[in-house]
């Protein structure tokens, strides 16, 4: 066996087979590093034991920042820094501030959340992706199992993956 990180890859054709296979492989006591798919597969995060994404909370927090920033900016500029009476309204005509406050909330929530998403998923234009199989972005689902992270022998893992309904079982090594 060569040096580097050695993987066993289970290649699957169908998403429903994949979800059942993940269950079987995990029940067999094998740790799955990650499952790669050409499209989002429903229910896969449950069987892999992933928690629900917390990005919604991030979006809410960024949204709150946007709301407060917009209010502080408008009240500060129109009420404190250079008060002016426009159209006979108060210095701080609150209803008139609603549109800009709303837009700033949405803007910060959206950009903050997407920025966080790129950071947590490590997506960046200069990123060098670890591509297990180029067919992942076409029509195959791939289950990647790191051999060093598992106590079982390679032959046992391969047998378990094969039995779970994989169409191919391959090896892949990253140096």
């Amino acid at each position, binding site marked *: 066996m060569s040096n580097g990180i050695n993987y066993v890859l289970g290649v699957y054709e169908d*998403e*429903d087979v994949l979800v059942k296979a993940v269950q079987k492989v995990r029940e067999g006591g094998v740790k799955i590093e*990650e*499952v*790669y*798919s*050409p*499209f*989002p*597969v429903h229910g*896969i*995060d449950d069987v892999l034991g*992933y928690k*629900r*994404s917390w*990005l*919604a909370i991030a*979006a809410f927090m960024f949204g709150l920042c946007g709301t407060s920033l917009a209010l502080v900016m*408008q009240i500060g*500029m*129109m009420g404190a*820094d*250079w008060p002016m009476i*426009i159209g006979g*309204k108060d210095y701080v*005509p609150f209803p*008139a*501030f609603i*549109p*800009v406050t*709303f*837009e*700033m909330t*949405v*803007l910060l*929530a*959206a*950009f903050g*959340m*997407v920025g966080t*998403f*790129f950071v947590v*998923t*490590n*997506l*960046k*234009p*200069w*990123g*060098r*992706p*670890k*591509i*297990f199989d*180029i*067919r*992942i*972005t*076409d*029509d195959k689902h791939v289950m990647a199992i790191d051999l060093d992270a598992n106590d079982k022998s390679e032959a046992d893992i391969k047998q378990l993956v094969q039995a779970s309904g994989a169409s191919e079982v391959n090896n892949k090594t990253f140096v």
Partner: protein
Amino acid sequence: MSAESVLREPLITGNKTLHDVTEDIVSRVEQKPTPLWMLAMAVSLSLLAVGFYAVYLLLWNGIGEWGLNKTVGWAWDITNFVWWVGIGHAGTLISAILLLFRQRWRMGINRAAEAMTIFAVICAAIFPILHTGRPWLAMYWMFPLPNTFGSLWVNFSSPLLWDVFAISTYFSVSLVFWYIGLIPDFATIRDRAKNKISKAIYGALSFGWVGGARTWSHYETVALILAGLATPLVLSVHTIVSFDFATSVIPGWHTTIFPPYFVSGAIFSGFAMVLTLLLVVRKVYKLEDYITIGHIELMNIVIIITGSIVGVAYITEFFIAWYSGVEAEQYAFMNRAMGPYWWAYASMMTCNVIAPQLFWFKKLRTNLAATFVISIIVNIGMWFERFVIIVTSIHRDFLPSSWAMFYPTKVDVGVYVFTFGFFFTAFFLFAKFFPVINIAEVKSILKNTGDKK
């Protein structure tokens, strides 16, 4: 008594496998530009060049190049602005609102519609930016930037400033939404790319996407929250655009019905433009299996609904003008329908209220040629709607001695042509180099809604 459940029509026809989907969409990006595409590009680039000369004249000589006068201080510029913003509503509506309502038919059309949205919003923004006269200084007039006058800030009570915030937020959030959707598809192109340059370009565009389950899980949350944010956003944008008029005291503009009326008008014209473009893309790229007659029929139904809402709004305005008993208001509306601009009003009524009613006939709303023609008629009608609202309300103001007509100059026309040149150039570039259909989303519904047994 028994009821039989009717199976839904498949959304993707032609017995496609996952690989076929990749092949059908990505091969368009990989193939060499066709002569037809070159011709289309040449036409749109020449429109852009002609229009650019008009923009140059406008910037060099000033706003006097437009046909505006003392009475009609807003005409083609703002008409075109509202028209383009309205067109720019369909994309985000399709991808955000239809995502929240779990309407899977959006998946065949959302990518192209969103691209169209982004280009249309850029075209819209060109008009107010040019109308500032000196766009290089406009940053200080539009955004609250510190300056040497105090700082003298922008006026947050002005609907025009709300517009700046609404349009720029809408543009940037739509762009992000569109790009997030493109990332997995760019990865598909990257993994198929043969030559180094396109591998590097699509590699960078794909942000190193590999499609892990953890990433997909975050990704789906992001898409859902963005849809949730974009839904009120898309409704707010045309609402705020309508405030430009509704918060004024001009008879004909000072109307509380404007926000919902403008929003439904925007969806109406946006869907019409999506149909115009998609019918062509579908034909040229042979995407009949992805954009089926079913898709077109559903879009036509949206057109009937929003067109009818717009029609009701036109009639309501008249009723309220009469019922209010305000003489100036009544005159504004009589003048609109029977004054010197009656022809604009009649065009609007015919194109927007009568023409889409033809879609009540199933034969017409499932007919490609009829859909194409009516979609163009609707867009002409929606341009006239904005022209009618804007120009006919102000051309006969409170002082009869200053009553005037508006005559567009060559520069007025030229700047409009410029935006068309830009729009089509951008759209053709998109159609050639970007995947025109969301590959990953279509694959995710293929098993349940495809017709493969």
